[in-house]
């Protein structure tokens, strides 16, 4: 799990060397690696024996190896003879095979055992697999193994983030939510033992759960007793002063080094740093102290008695307040500590802290602080932060209650505008009460005199029109807004983003990208007040890239967006970036990857599944499942997306409409699929959503088997759209349609190349497949065969995608095993060498290659190289 390369190196050493030493920090996973290597060893070649050295066996001659030696080992007059007898005894019963001796904690071997291990390796009759802790003194005979170049020494490293994810997926037997995988990696720093213990604790405690195939950790870490002991063992013995400093760091990190030194003595700090329990890093012009491992803090807080924890929090709050609380997060931290310590706090401090918590999207803390501020008399200012935190946390009903409770409080225009804004947001998104949302805005516009709020309210109306799919009306409203001479900077920045969204949706992508790029800097200034706008800007810029056919660029942007979203810890961008990655993966033909992203997006919906673009995510999943050939599942998923249609999400409805033909086609209903594609095109046309209309019309073309009126009309309309649209994807789809109508195989080939250039492998495969059929009908069998091979190679990248066109061609696909074998054959390995590398019989390799040649229509490995790696010299 996550150690493929290490296992390959060990497997190779088993064939060529007398052993290998695996060194590494405690818990890094070397014992597990050795176990997996031994399990994979060929028992026809090796007799496997295992031993483990301990501190108890260290002083006893042959202590660690005693279980493997006969009780009646003959007394030998001297050490060489003793070792020879012992070696013979160890090798007894191996009968032509080699001994595979696996030793754990080899640094604890007694000298005699170590000498025996060395001798066994040197004789070449055994393969020694020794694990030892890095940095600990090992017996001379063991260090001689690598110093005399008898065996390699492999330093086993902590898992990287993506290796951690691989391990989690394998261990949990399902997909793992990206945020969970990242948190686990950060908490364990890739240490296999800690990872296992944390996962076990999470599963046992109900924090790590699986819903519809995706695992996710909700809530704080759980430090189960066994994990606590493991961490405590690493922390080691502490004197009271050291314990105090670590506890201060556990509650206060990151904490200024000077501040911490003022609460303790410098020597203790130095000692703890030397022990590797604290580390210091520069942050601007000051040094900040952190615990060396995130889980140390968990353990220390978990074990700290309540009253001591309270004193520590008060101490920290007093100390930071005495410094003048000059840093922007200081009041947030002070309020948090005081609240946790049940100490009195001024409402103004609480409101300021709640605003700061909201700004950094720590929604639970923002909520706690705002509620406390309300209790302490913080009034409408506290309520404003509270509704925002609840709204972003998808708790619209609770947010609405807050609004209702605030309505009667006396407040200035600014706060009334804010309340109206919030109420409209909640009604529109949280409850799909569209008319009520508009009514609130209209009333507020009449009641509030401040021009800023008129701008904001008018902008929000246009946001609503956009989301209702009335892009024309929104565009007109925006034009009127931009014409205002005194438009506030905040409204202007948001209006730029909205304009970019409308342009993107209607297929004017160059302008969309330009305006969204121009909006980046202005909107960043308001990110603490309207954080969702910045995320939406990023998402729509990526959609514009998709509609321009720049799928690879979009893929890279979406991946960066996802990474940023995970860092923020806010579900809204995580969900958006997962959905984006699903769209892109599907358009690229990676249907299983697309489904994985869509499922991860769905997993973000915990409490209120019927809101905030849930249908859109589910529609995408249905589309992906359909393309993967899971017709029944896809139909059920689509039904779920249709269960509660939301007026306020009409802008995203085209994605769902595009899923319908795919689901019908997967179910074998091609005629219905064509009809549904036509209907989807009509729906998109109603929104002037050119890229969506083009995709739907293209579906009509793809799915049609003869020159029907629907096909011809779709191709004509696509040509008309391509003439006016500024979106690369539309142009290529129109070219494809035109070539289909003309039965022009060479144009289809050209279109396929354009699609490959975009990264749309599945659509390219379909274009090649059609061209191959035309060549076949024309009797040009060589060309047909050549294209079939191309189809096979493209479909091979599409993770088992099933579309009618590809199925029609019965495109041969290589299995994962066949691909591995083909790659090794191309690398120049003989069938025997491939068999050894993959630890399978040579006859199996022969059979696989025969199968591969048949599928690809070629006669030998020279053709294979040319097909698989045509650009290699």
């Amino acid at each position: 799990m996550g150690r493929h390369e290490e296992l390959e190196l060990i497997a190779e050493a088993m064939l060529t060397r007398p052993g290998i030493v695996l060194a590494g920090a405690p818990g890094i996973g070397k014992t597990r690696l050795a176990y997996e290597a031994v399990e994979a060893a060929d028992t026809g070649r090796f007799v496997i024996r295992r031993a483990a050295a301990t501190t108890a066996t260290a002083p006893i001659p042959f202590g660690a190896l005693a279980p493997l030696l006969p009780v009646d080992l003959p007394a030998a007059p001297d050490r060489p003879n003793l070792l020879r007898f012992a070696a013979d005894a160890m090798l007894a019963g191996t009968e032509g095979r080699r001994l595979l001796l696996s030793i754990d904690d080899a640094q604890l071997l007694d000298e005699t055992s170590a000498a025996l291990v060395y001798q066994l390796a040197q004789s070449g009759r055994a393969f020694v697999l020794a694990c030892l802790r890095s940095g600990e003194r090992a017996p001379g005979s063991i260090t001689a193994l690598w110093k005399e170049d008898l065996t390699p020494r492999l330093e086993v490293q902590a898992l990287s983030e993506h290796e951690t994810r691989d391990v989690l997926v394998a261990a949990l037997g399902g997909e793992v939510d990206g945020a969970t995988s990242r948190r686990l990696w950060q908490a364990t720093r890739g240490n296999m033992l800690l990872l296992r213990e944390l996962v076990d604790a999470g599963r046992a405690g109900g924090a790590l759960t699986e819903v519809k195939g995706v695992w996710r950790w909700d809530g704080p870490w759980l430090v189960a007793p066994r994990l606590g002991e493991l961490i405590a063992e690493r922390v080691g013995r502490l004197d009271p002063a050291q314990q105090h400093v670590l506890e201060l760091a556990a509650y206060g990190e990151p904490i200024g080094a000077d501040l911490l030194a003022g609460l303790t003595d410098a020597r203790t700090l130095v000692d703890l740093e030397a022990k590797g329990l604290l580390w210091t890093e520069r942050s601007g012009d000051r040094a900040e102290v952190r615990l060396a491992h995130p889980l140390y803090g968990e353990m220390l807080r978990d074990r700290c008695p309540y009253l001591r924890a309270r004193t520590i929090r008060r101490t920290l709050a007093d100390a930071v307040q005495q410094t003048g609380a000059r840093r922007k997060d200081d009041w947030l931290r002070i309020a948090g500590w005081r609240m946790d310590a049940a100490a009195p706090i001024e409402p103004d401090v609480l409101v300021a802290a709640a605003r700061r918590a909201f700004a950094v999207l720590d929604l639970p803390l923002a909520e706690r602080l705002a509620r406390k501020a309300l209790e302490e008399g913080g009034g409408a200012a506290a309520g404003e932060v509270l509704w925002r935190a609840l709204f972003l946390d998808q708790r619209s009903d609770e947010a609405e209650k807050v609004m209702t409770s605030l309505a009667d409080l006396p407040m200035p225009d600014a706060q009334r505008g804010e309340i109206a804004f919030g109420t409209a947001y909640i009604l529109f998104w949280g409850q799909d009460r569209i008319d009520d949302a508009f009514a609130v805005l209209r009333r507020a516009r009449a009641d509030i005199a401040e021009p800023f709020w008129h701008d904001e309210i008018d902008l929000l109306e246009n946001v609503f029109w956009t989301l209702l799919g009335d892009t024309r009306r929104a565009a007109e409203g925006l034009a009127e807004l931009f014409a205002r001479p005194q438009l506030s900077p905040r409204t202007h920045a948001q209006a730029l983003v909205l304009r970019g969204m409308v342009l993107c949706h209607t297929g004017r992508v160059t302008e969309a990208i330009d305006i969204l790029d121009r909006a980046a800097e202005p909107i960043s200034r308001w990110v603490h007040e309207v954080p969702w706008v910045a995320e939406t800007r990023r998402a729509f810029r990526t959609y514009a890239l998709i509609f321009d056919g720049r799928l690879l660029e979009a893929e890279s942007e979406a991946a960066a967006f996802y990474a940023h979203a995970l860092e923020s810890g806010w579900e809204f961008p995580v969900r958006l970036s997962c959905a984006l990655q699903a769209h892109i993966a599907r358009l690229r033909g990676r249907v299983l990857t697309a489904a994985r992203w869509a499922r991860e997006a769905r997993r973000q919906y915990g409490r209120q599944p019927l809101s905030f673009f849930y249908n859109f995510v589910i529609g995408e999943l249905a589309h992906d499942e359909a393309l993967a050939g899971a017709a029944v599942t896809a139909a059920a998923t689509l039904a779920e997306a249709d269960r509660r249609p939301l007026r306020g999400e009409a802008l995203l409805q085209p994605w769902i409409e595009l899923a319908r033909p795919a689901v019908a086609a997967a179910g074998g209903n091609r005629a219905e699929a064509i009809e549904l594609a036509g209907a989807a095109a009509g729906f998109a046309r109603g929104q002037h959503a050119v890229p969506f209309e083009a995709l739907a019309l293209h579906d009509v073309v793809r799915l049609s088997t003869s020159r029907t009126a629907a096909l011809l009309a779709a191709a004509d309309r696509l040509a008309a759209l391509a003439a006016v649209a500024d979106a690369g994807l539309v142009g290529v789809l129109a070219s494809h349609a035109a070539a289909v109508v003309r039965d022009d195989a060479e144009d289809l080939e050209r279109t396929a190349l354009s699609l490959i250039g975009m990264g749309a492998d599945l659509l390219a495969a379909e274009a090649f497949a059609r061209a191959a059929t035309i060549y076949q009908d024309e009797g040009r069998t060589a060309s047909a065969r050549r294209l079939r091979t191309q189809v096979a190679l493209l479909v091979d990248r599409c993770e088992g995608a099933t579309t009618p066109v590809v199925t029609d061609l019965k495109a041969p696909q290589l299995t994962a095993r066949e691909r591995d074998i083909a790659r090794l054959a191309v690398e120049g390995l003989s069938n025997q060498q491939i068999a050894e590398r993959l630890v399978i019989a040579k006859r199996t390799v022969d059979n696989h290659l025969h199968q591969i040649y048949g599928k690809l229509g070629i006669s030998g490995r020279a053709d294979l190289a040319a097909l698989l790696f045509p650009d290699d010299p």
Partner: protein
Amino acid sequence: MLRAAAATARTFEVMDRADALELLPETYARALTLRGRGASPADIAGELDIVVEAVPPLLRIADAKLARLLRERPPGRSRGQAAHESAT
């Protein structure tokens, strides 16, 4: 033409080395970077605080992990953009 198409497609599959290095465990990434700058095994061992004999296997694993990332991971932005520009 098809050969060129396959070559283009393959180019798209290739991820930037720099992007892939970022996904490696830190020690591997540092080892490869140091080697790339011409550091000797002894220098690499000193920098990474490991015994010098452990450097060759470490580099080998690092190379293999990097190669796998370059094979399996999506293309990096700069490479994707360059490929797109050359294709259009």
